[in-house]
């Protein structure tokens, strides 16, 4: 019994203390995957804030955009032209979704819209594999001028490796978040979007129709998905198995609250770092693979104590 308690509450921390360089490495790895979770969650929050739709397809949009980019390049399109074309495709997607799906489902209960986005997920998976094939592809990292080397840091004789891709991912994610923040606070359209998030009537007074707002938010979420797709693809590969990982945006959202952008970021980092630490230091006690469920179980436990998430407003029920 004592041995068990020690191996849960003692040994992992001793290990962290004794091998600080490894500990830093683990934190860094967790941090980077946390950023990617945060990016997916961010796209989700954008849509939820503007339209109250729980967009289950956000994770698939990540894969779909990555696949489109790689697929276009494979057809001989130069990398940056392919990037532009993918952006156009994401716009077309947003436009099509608004026209064919959302517009026809206004005023339906949330659960119906949610289920429609699950249907959308199917369409994107099937469509993506149909057009681009279902085999795993690698991201056109060097073509997009993303650095691929690595740097070594030796704190006190230890060894920590930083992949340049990871650094780039962190930097690009930060840039994206800053530019979104600027977009929302400085531009007219952005402010309108914020207004509509608070009050649907408000949008009319700003002179932008609800339909346009939906296209814009879904497009913005598509761009965020594309960035996440590129960075993720660069770290591993582009394939629809990413979809399972993309689902992890959901516990991130639970942690951060569905409507909070800072929540998505903090939640992503907590989940990313937390699950790596858990996998490495406590995972061996249970047999590996705990990464698969850790995020969900943490989110679940967390929900029991704070059903509205970290940054969400307290849910008040009235009659």
């Amino acid at each position, binding site marked *: 019994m004592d041995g068990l308690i020690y191996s849960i509450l003692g040994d992992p921390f001793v290990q962290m203390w004794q091998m600080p360089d490894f500990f830093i490495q683990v934190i860094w790895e967790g941090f980077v995957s946390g950023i990617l979770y945060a990016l997916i969650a961010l796209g989700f929050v954008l849509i939820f804030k503007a339209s109250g739709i*729980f967009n289950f397809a956000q994770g698939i949009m990540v894969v779909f955009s990555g696949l489109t980019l790689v697929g276009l390049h494979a057809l001989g399109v130069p990398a940056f032209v392919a990037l532009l074309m993918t952006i156009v495709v994401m716009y077309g997607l947003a436009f099509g979704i608004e026209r*064919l*799906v959302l517009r*026809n*489902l206004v005023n*339906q209960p*949330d*659960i*119906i819209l*949610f*289920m*429609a986005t*699950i*249907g*959308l*997920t*199917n*369409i*994107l*998976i*099937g*469509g993506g*594999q*149909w057009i681009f094939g*279902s085999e795993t592809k690698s991201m056109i990292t060097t073509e997009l001028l993303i650095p691929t080397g690595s740097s070594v840091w030796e704190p006190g004789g230890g060894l920590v490796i930083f992949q340049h891709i990871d650094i780039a991912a962190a930097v690009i994610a930060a840039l994206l978040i800053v530019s979104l923040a600027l977009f929302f606070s400085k531009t007219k359209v952005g402010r309108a979007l914020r207004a509509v998030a608070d009050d649907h009537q408000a949008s009319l007074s700003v002179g932008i129709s609800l339909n346009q707002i939906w296209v814009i938010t879904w497009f913005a979420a598509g761009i965020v998905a594309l960035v996440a797709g590129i960075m993720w693809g660069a770290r591993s590969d582009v394939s629809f198995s990413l979809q*399972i990982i993309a*689902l992890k945006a*959901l*516990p991130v*959202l*639970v942690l951060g609250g*569905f409507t909070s952008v800072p929540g998505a970021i903090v939640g992503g980092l907590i989940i990313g770092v937390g699950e790596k630490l858990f996998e490495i230091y406590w995972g061996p006690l*249970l*047999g590996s*693979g*705990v990464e*698969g*469920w850790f995020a*969900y*179980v943490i*989110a*679940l436990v967390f*929900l*029991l104590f704070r*059903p509205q998430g970290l940054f969400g407003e307290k849910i008040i*029920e009235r*009659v």
Partner: protein
Amino acid sequence: MFYREAGQFKTSYAEYLQALPLREDKVGIAIWLLLAVFYVPFFGLPGLEYTFAMNAIMIPVLIFTITALGLNILVGYTGQISLGTGAFMGVGAYACYKLTTYFPDVNIILIILASGFVSAAVGALFGLPSLRIKGFYLVVATLAAQFFLEWCFIRVEWLYNYNPSGAIEVPQREVFGIVVTGAAASPATRYLVVLGILIFLTIIAGNLVRGRIGRSWMMIRDMDIAAELIGVRPLRAKLSAFAVSSYYCGVSGALMVFLWLGAAEVESFDVNHSFLYLFMVIFGGLGSITGSYMGAAFIWTFPILLKELGKRVFDIDSIIMENVSLVAIGMLIVFILIKEPHGLARLWQLGKQKLRIWPFAH
């Protein structure tokens, strides 16, 4: 034109409260039942090769109808979205495997029905958070169940009797001298066992949803606060829904492995399957027993028929057809949500109503 309500006077409330108050509905069901019992086991489906019809269509459709019934109780009747169906089916399957390992002589049908209780218990456990968590947050809770259980199916080697392949392999079991499970079991036997269990579970589900318990589920679904102020205990209502729903899923999981697949690994219970079952329920009709039948039949057979069509008529590669059917199903889901959010069952009902007042237009 024969579908008329007029002239059938109900003499008592008891008659009025029957599952099928209309004579035409009773006749319709009777015909389906006769076909299912006396035609299909011997001749399969018209135009299809017999073993294909049984193994690829009839048996899985019946099994997934049980799943859909279970999921519909949770999603359609109680309004609690779940993406953990696959895993709850897994619990039933592994429970059945363990039980028949320990009690090899007990009637396998009883074991299958008993393994549902294990899954009911696990389902109720994971349903506990639903008391505090609502709506989309609950989706995350059920995903926790899905992924945690999937992990257990891999890591807890005891569950598959330490089989190095990690799979459960169905042993041969006989009931009254007839081989029911294992490679030697005939499709007709397996089909009839599944059909029997399905009919039994359908009657029970129908009884439950029309009575006090089903009403408490629907009250929670439609307006949980009002339900509580009227005297429904949310914990009891939600947990009973989770338990009953998971019971159905568990039984269908056990049937899936024991009477259909013959062997299974964790992939048979993954989250993609959970989506598939949710589609069946949405497409067939949320909160409808008939809808569960229609949804399971449609969502399961549609891709198969599409694939056959592609192969035979257009000579298209089956992988492409798989993707085509993914897209088609996705589009159909979106389409039905737009046109009739209550699914095929509602369309069917509306059709019947039209028929009932025919030839008068309104």
